[in-house]
């Protein structure tokens, strides 16, 4: 057992927090393989992967913000309405005042920030539960969307559409692939390798255990392999297609927010507040400010997601954003966040969101009706969480738990991972 544990630690845990994500990804891989076989290989075609990314990028962007909200112990039900409201405001503004589209995007982000400040104010400074504030927001901004848009569909300009439906341009020699996507892939490979080697170096300098070289090589090989495969798929679609722009926005956000939540004091404060707000406050965490920023951040991301959807649909309509909040919340919980707050990671939520996205896509490729798709998604959400809860309460080995252990903060921390003592104080009470 201990040898297996050693291996597990070496492969998934232990060295870098980056490598921990392998665990949850197994679930995703299983779903991909299942549908890959079931749909006769359609799932992993370039065209389909590109479609999936552009279809679900806005949900995944919402999941990033939602994870932080849920970790802080709140919930946000208003994201769909906020997205729809922002969408119609931006579309109308661009139509009526002929704003150039980059200004439109800035306007949208500003609207998101304003709405976020409004909701953050009620949650953090007045102390109304976020559930109520955002339930009110859901009605408020849905109504606002219909009031401004007159329940009408408002088209947006060609330029604006790039953020939702755009692709990287075709430049350079004709390699049979989209060259810019290839370059991005190469950069990603280099980044992964650099990180791995860097972390070995750090551990060596700190006199910590260093995993055997072959483990590192294996890990790098797997990651590089996946990246190369994905790059080729995204670069090898129809001429004119590539990794979608919305996918690039998503990746940038994931990297930035992962870093923020994992490696910065501000990010750790969110976990501290969610784990035990009282203890966090006594340790000097500015409770109100954290709550305010988390709610505000969510609305800004919702605004961005709304604009991406409008861009992809080429018009803002009265039905935008319906039940997005539920998709985002489901992604976060499938990704291993705790309902009580304090636990969960960005990457886990993204993987959770991808599980839902690929499930949806695979079932649609199979021609399963949307009624059945909803039933299946509902069951998957329930079972994924229930199975784990049951196993944990029985004190038995929990498959999902062990898969997701890398995402949880309750295992003994590697030394590099706890930058602030405050987060420790907040964490301790929720462990186990």
């Amino acid at each position, binding site marked *: 057992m201990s040898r297996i544990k050693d291996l597990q630690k070496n492969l998934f845990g232990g060295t870098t927090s980056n490598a921990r994500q392998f665990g949850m990804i197994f679930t995703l891989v299983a779903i991909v393989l299942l549908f890959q076989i079931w749909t006769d290989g359609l799932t992993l075609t370039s065209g389909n992967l590109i479609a999936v990314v552009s279809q679900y990028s806005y949900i995944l962007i919402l999941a990033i913000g939602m994870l932080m909200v849920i970790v802080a112990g709140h919930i946000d039900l208003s994201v769909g309405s906020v997205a729809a409201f922002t969408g119609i405001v931006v579309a109308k503004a661009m139509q009526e005042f002929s704003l150039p589209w980059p200004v439109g995007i800035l306007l949208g982000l500003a609207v998101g920030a304003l709405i976020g400040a409004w909701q953050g104010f009620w949650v953090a400074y007045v102390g109304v539960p976020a559930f109520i504030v955002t339930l009110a927001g859901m009605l408020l901004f849905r109504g606002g969307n219909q009031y401004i848009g007159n329940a009408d569909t408002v088209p947006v300009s060609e330029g604006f559409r790039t953020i939702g439906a755009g692709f990287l341009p075709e430049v350079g020699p004709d390699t049979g692939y989209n060259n810019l996507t290839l370059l991005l892939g190469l950069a990603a490979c280099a980044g992964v390798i650099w990180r791995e080697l860097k972390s070995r170096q750090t551990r060596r300098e700190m006199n910590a255990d260093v995993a055997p070289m072959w483990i590192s090589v294996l890990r790098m090989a797997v990651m590089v392999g996946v990246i190369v495969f994905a790059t080729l798929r995204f670069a090898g679609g129809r001429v004119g297609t590539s990794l979608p722009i919305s996918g690039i926005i998503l990746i940038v956000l994931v990297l930035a927010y992962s870093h923020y939540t994992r490696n910065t004091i501000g990010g750790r404060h969110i976990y501290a507040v969610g784990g035990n707000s009282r203890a966090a406050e006594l340790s000097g965490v500015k409770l109100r400010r954290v709550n305010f920023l988390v709610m505000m951040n969510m609305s800004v991301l919702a605004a961005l997601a709304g604009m991406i959807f409008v861009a992809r*649909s080429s018009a803002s309509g009265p039905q935008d954003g319906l039940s997005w909040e539920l998709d985002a919340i489901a992604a976060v919980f499938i990704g291993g966040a705790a309902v009580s707050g304090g636990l969960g990671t960005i990457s886990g939520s993204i993987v959770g969101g991808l599980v839902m996205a690929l499930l949806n896509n695979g079932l649609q490729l199979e021609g399963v009706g949307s009624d059945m798709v909803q039933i299946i998604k509902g069951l998957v959400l329930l079972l994924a969480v229930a199975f784990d809860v049951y196993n944990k309460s029985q004190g038995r080995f929990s498959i999902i738990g062990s898969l997701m252990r890398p995402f949880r903060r309750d295992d003994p921390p590697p030394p590099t991972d706890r930058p602030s003592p405050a987060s420790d104080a907040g964490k301790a009470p929720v462990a186990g």
Partner: protein
Amino acid sequence: MRKYLTRSVALIGAVALLTLSACFSEREGAPAAGASGSAAPAKGFAADALIGVALPSKTSENWVLAGDLFTNGLKEAGFTSDVQYAGASTTVADQQAQISAMVTKGAKVIVIGATDAAQLTTQVKQAKEAGAVVIAYDRLITNTPDVDYYIAFDNFKVGQLQGQALLDGMKAKKPEGPWTVELFSGSPDDNNSGVFFNGAMDVLKPAIDSGDVVVGSGQTDIKQTAIQGWKAENAQSRMDSLLTSTYNGDKKLDGVLSPNDTLARAIITSVKGAGKDIPVVTGQDSEVESVKSIMAGEQYSTINKDTRKLVAETIGMVKSLQAGTEPTINDKDSYDNGQKVVPAYLLPPVIVTKDNAAESYANDPKLAPLTQG
């Protein structure tokens, strides 16, 4: 150490590059997997090819019926069909994803009954680039140059028939003019509302100009006659106020132009409530309640747009595309979606009054029994 680091990065980067280039030959064919239909669609395609049908959510029985008819009809014609409804809560996003999935599966023709006609630009473009033919079913897809055909009932004709029915009905009740009427039109955000109204005015205008028909309230502009959201309660309250403002004495109202059955029934309810004689009221859609009302002698007319015929014509269109021939088009210049004029095939609607109801609904299992006796 740093040197070791950089060198490793460079080394593995090079390996990755090699892997990339090694894959070239193998991957050359891959794009075709997503776009296997890139052969020109006009040349026809396999007789058992996949035909995608994306319909709005199952909220109206008309769409449910259309879906069943498509599933069976395409199967009988030898095609593989994939008929999808958008989910009830996430209609637009669902339909977008469904169309993308159909493209991925290599559908040769995609028939779309749009949930939001202006929000499918990206998907329709994707379909077009993959070589699929896009047919807009019942609702014209706007905001895109990538729609190939439009098939629907002739809505202008619907309006004309309603106008004519109104005149005929009033003449039958009161042989000599002038007749007093009120006009109603559909929701201002629905493209079709204006088409219906203009069709009706095409017939009524000459009569109004000659003084045979008088609009009692003087409200003849579509902005004044519009009923927001096609809502019955809005039609009822407008009729209520018209009755109070214009028909409070013994002034008689002879007819009301109503664009559809729901509004027609609301208008009749209002008139009954005011204790007035029921005027000649037109309608559209052959709703069950209205067919009953017509048989009871209250509502004067409705329009029958037979979903069976529309689906059959659409499948006919798919068949001629399969054979590589140009499908039948009877309107090349009326349907401009903002980016292009979409060639359309328009089916003639049928006016139904008490006289021809039995005959018109003979093939409709739900309505036929209502017309007996």
